[in-house]
């Protein structure tokens, strides 16, 4: 059993309400509990709208003013992020937690050149003197796989490719000495090769720097190769969770089995693509609602 000293992020019974259109409100997260230890990769997998991105944004405090926490805590290094002052949370975002999203261009000012963007990052992390010279940046560029950085320094961020932007965002996490990197659907929009390269980069920085990574993904394909823990989301709650290999080899719920089987393989053609069956969805819904009404909830 890992000692609790190495726990970096702990989500305890978080329940959150969100707007659902036409003035209605719905439960976005149902008594979600999970733990992320240092140097670990935790994957949150689930369908679109299951609440995994909402949890990711809630951790960085970017869920929006209309999302209201109804209960629970999110402890990051022992401090409750849900009850932190805005200024303190801003400091956490600057130095301790970084985020890479699927739409990387929406994370940067498209008109700003790379050089200026890096200087802004250094200013935010209060390391401008340490890395004042551009030569000092070269190690960081190489650590994220950017081979000829001088070619991109003057380019506007909006002109860079999606993969290059993600590399730069990971580099920013390294420069700011973040302890947690949240990748919210970061592999969407990448081709298979780029996706593999990005995951390889994440594993590499996890090994070298001990960075903890929380990833949200829309499928369970291949997660056993890099993830330590996996949590399957369904309708705002965690259906089941555990070590990646164990969960994928012997999932507890039919939903998880069918979710895993949804990925079409070449050998499966020609036949109809698989979807989640009604029985599996019903079983998952009952489990979630039962878990959310009990004291323990779904826990990693």
């Amino acid at each position, binding site marked *: 059993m890992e000692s609790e000293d190495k726990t970096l992020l702990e989500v305890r019974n978080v329940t959150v309400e969100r707007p659902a259109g036409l003035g209605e409100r719905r439960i976005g997260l149902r008594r979600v509990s999970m733990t992320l230890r240092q140097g670990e990769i935790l994957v949150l997998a689930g369908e679109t709208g299951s609440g995994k991105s909402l949890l990711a944004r809630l951790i960085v405090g970017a869920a929006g003013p209309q999302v209201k926490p109804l209960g629970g805590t999110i402890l990051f290094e022992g401090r409750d992020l849900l009850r932190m002052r805005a200024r303190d949370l801003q400091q956490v*975002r600057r130095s301790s937690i970084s985020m890479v999203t699927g739409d990387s261009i929406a994370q940067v000012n*498209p*008109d700003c050149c790379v050089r200026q963007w890096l200087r802004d990052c250094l200013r935010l992390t209060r390391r401008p003197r340490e890395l004042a010279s551009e030569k000092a940046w070269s190690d960081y560029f190489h650590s994220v796989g950017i081979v000829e950085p001088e070619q991109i320094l003057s380019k506007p961020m909006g002109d860079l490719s999606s993969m290059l932007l993600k590399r730069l965002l990971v580099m920013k996490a390294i420069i700011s000495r973040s302890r947690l990197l949240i990748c919210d659907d970061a592999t969407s929009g990448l081709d298979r090769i780029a996706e593999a390269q990005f995951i390889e980069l994440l594993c590499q920085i996890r090994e070298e720097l001990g960075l903890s990574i929380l990833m949200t993904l829309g499928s369970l394909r291949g997660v056993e190769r890099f993830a330590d823990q996996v949590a399957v989301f369904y309708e705002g709650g965690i259906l089941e969770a555990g070590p990646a290999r164990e969960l994928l080899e012997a999932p507890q719920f039919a939903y998880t089995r069918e979710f895993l089987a949804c990925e079409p393989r070449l050998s499966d053609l020609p036949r109809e693509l698989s979807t989640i069956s009604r029985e599996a969805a019903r079983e998952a819904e009952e489990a979630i609602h039962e878990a959310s009404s009990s004291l323990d909830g779904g826990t990693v």
Partner: protein
Amino acid sequence: MARLFLQSLLVALIRFAAAGIALIMLIEVVYCVIGRTDRHVWLPESYGPVPAELTTRPVNWSGLLRDRAAASLPVMLVSLTGVLLIGGAWGTLGARLRRFRGTSLLGAPFSIFACVPGFWFVILVAIYSYFQWKRPGFANELVVERGPDILTWWHISVVALPAMAAGVAWQIRAVSTVLEKEAARPYLRGLFIAGYSDEDIFYRNVFRRALPSLLALSDRTLSCLAGSLVCLEYAFRYPGIGSLLVESVKLGSYGGILVSALSMAAFVSLCVAVSECVARLVKPEGFSS
């Protein structure tokens, strides 16, 4: 930079020429086609010396232009400075505080004042001036002693005020709209997640990106300010370019109309050229269409 300025100047010249041609055609259509006179605009005999009603001393057209422009220019500069500074600053503040509902009231005093017809404001000033200071309140040479400079500046300010109020009211809303539109872009959430402060996000990113659009607003401001002075100078009996236009139209003096309208067009063209230059320096990608 010199090339940039010359390009802007060339475009300004083309626009000025187009305005001049349109003006000549307008005079011809209105006076000769609708008014059915024989005084065609291209005939030299349609022009003559400066009519006595337009000036108090013997002067030629260039002298008249000099006198009137010297009176109008300070008014234009005072009102333009007020509009750009107050309107720009208030509008930026309104956008910066957009999360607070009361910010829409920031421009309320100017908007209310802009609903007051400027020529009626003149009447109030004239009445106040007469009953309070025991002097007739209008600004023409016959009734106002050209005494200390402060009186001249008082008249300049009072003429500029109604034009400025209407300009400020519109400028506040336009600047706020441009900045709020820019502040709604998706990349700002990414900057927020990265830990940028509100001030960083607004001033270093939103304001910077919106600067070319804000500069483009000044084109219309200039044109409308020049137009509003036409009525205000006439109302105040202020001897400027605007009142010259109205008096010339009433007299049917082609020379006066051309001198006044073209000088306003030249001023606006030059200022628009300068603002386009500045906009291109801020964003070198090219002119706005």
